[in-house]
């Protein structure tokens, strides 16, 4: 077991070319150690072999481990660390090695930190851009907010009132104009039958009631429609001249009551 603790590192110094005192010393030491090893090897080869079976494996292994560990422990306690001779060349060579290793490690660290730095810079830039965008959004939103909170009142109430009044006046005038035109039109084209026509046949019954003009009939129907919207029907009276009633019905301007033929109404053109 002590073989495994032999330091094999000095072997690596054996391929230097210059033969100096320090090296000769080292080589001598190595050869001494090698001789020790050969002796130990000889002793070992005398020890027999034994194999394990599954049943006795654990126990025997554990016992062996205990023995070996205790002997290793005692060996460590006994042994004092052997130093390689502290000659200048040796120290320099060792020092160089150490420094090379250190340099390699530091370079690794440097490259890692540099790449991390770059990543952090990229992250920072990204976050900065995001922040700028957010601030712009915030600004525009606050401007909008202010605008909506205090709307600029560009009109006054009186002006709207006046506007409405003028509108109403205009509409009323228009209405008058249309009604006058309607009246003239009806007078021209739909006059009442002439009362002065001689009655040729005596057995024609004449209505005794006074006939009213078509204009008046229409007025009655119109008023009824707007006064009593749920029952816009007007009873046909004797003052309605029948041909005109027929005219209105046939042209779809008036409609009969579905159940009562003596009542008519004006068609609701406005609905």
């Amino acid at each position, binding site marked *: 077991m002590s*073989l495994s603790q032999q330091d094999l*590192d000095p072997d690596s110094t054996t391929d230097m070319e210059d033969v100096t005192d320090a090296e000769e010393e080292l080589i001598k030491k190595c050869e001494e150690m090698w001789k020790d090893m050969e002796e130990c090897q000889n002793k070992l080869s005398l020890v027999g*072999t034994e*194999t*394990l079976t599954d049943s006795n494996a654990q126990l025997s*292994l*554990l016992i*062996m481990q205990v023995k070996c560990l205790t002997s*290793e422990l005692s060996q460590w306690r006994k042994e004092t660390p052997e130093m390689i001779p502290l000659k200048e060349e040796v120290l320099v060579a060792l020092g160089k090695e150490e420094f090379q290793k250190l340099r390699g490690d530091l370079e690794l660290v440097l490259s890692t930190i540099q790449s991390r730095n770059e990543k952090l810079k990229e992250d920072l830039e990204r976050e900065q851009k995001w922040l700028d965008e957010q601030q712009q959004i915030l600004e525009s939103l606050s401007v909008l907010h202010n605008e909506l909170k205090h709307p600029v009142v560009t009109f006054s109430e009186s002006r709207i009132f006046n506007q409405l009044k003028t509108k109403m006046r205009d509409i009323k005038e228009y209405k008058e104009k249309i009604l006058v035109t309607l009246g003239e039109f009806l007078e021209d084209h739909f006059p009442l039958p002439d009362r002065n026509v001689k009655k040729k046949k005596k057995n024609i019954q004449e209505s005794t009631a006074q006939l009213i003009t078509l204009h008046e009939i229409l007025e009655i129907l119109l008023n009824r429609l707007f006064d009593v919207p749920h029952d816009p029907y007007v009873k046909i009276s004797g003052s309605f001249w029948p041909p005109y009633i027929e005219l209105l019905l046939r042209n779809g301007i008036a409609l009969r009551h579905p159940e009562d033929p003596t009542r008519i109404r004006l068609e609701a053109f406005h609905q």
Partner: protein
Amino acid sequence: MSVLRPLDKLPGLNTATILLVGTDDVLLQQLAGSMLKEDCASELKVHLAKSLPLPSDVNRPRIDLIVFVVNLHSQHSLRNVEESLHHVDSTFFLGKVSFLATGAGQESHCSVHRNTVVKLAHTYRSPLLFCDLEVEGFRTTMAQRLVRMLQICAGHVPGVSALNLLSLLRSTENPSLEDL
């Protein structure tokens, strides 16, 4: 010799030798390749074997670490390893033997239960490593671990012996006191 002994020869200068035992040739070759690619201060030698005992006429260097590779997909590899274990000297098990179980990634193909291998490693008081040797990344990592272990077992790391390593690897691997 039919039984492998750990310290039967003098070591080669600055060399460390590992023996991989297992039935899967392809996997062993790949693992050996990954190990040889590793940066190492000592010279590495990898020997592959299907099973023990090894033919005795070959001039081989001193073996520093044996790794028994068990493929969880085949019962045959487990039995092969179990038989080979009988040809190893008991002193090898003081840290110079390790078990490696592969194929645990594909649960559906496993015919050997994980616990069987765990118990085997526990019986022989040796560390058990799990690795899917078919996956490149895992194989490289495992190769690095094995190289480190090999260096310690060959004595190239001053102050740490194979037995010390064994004690260090002990902590998380053993099952509870059920078996004792």
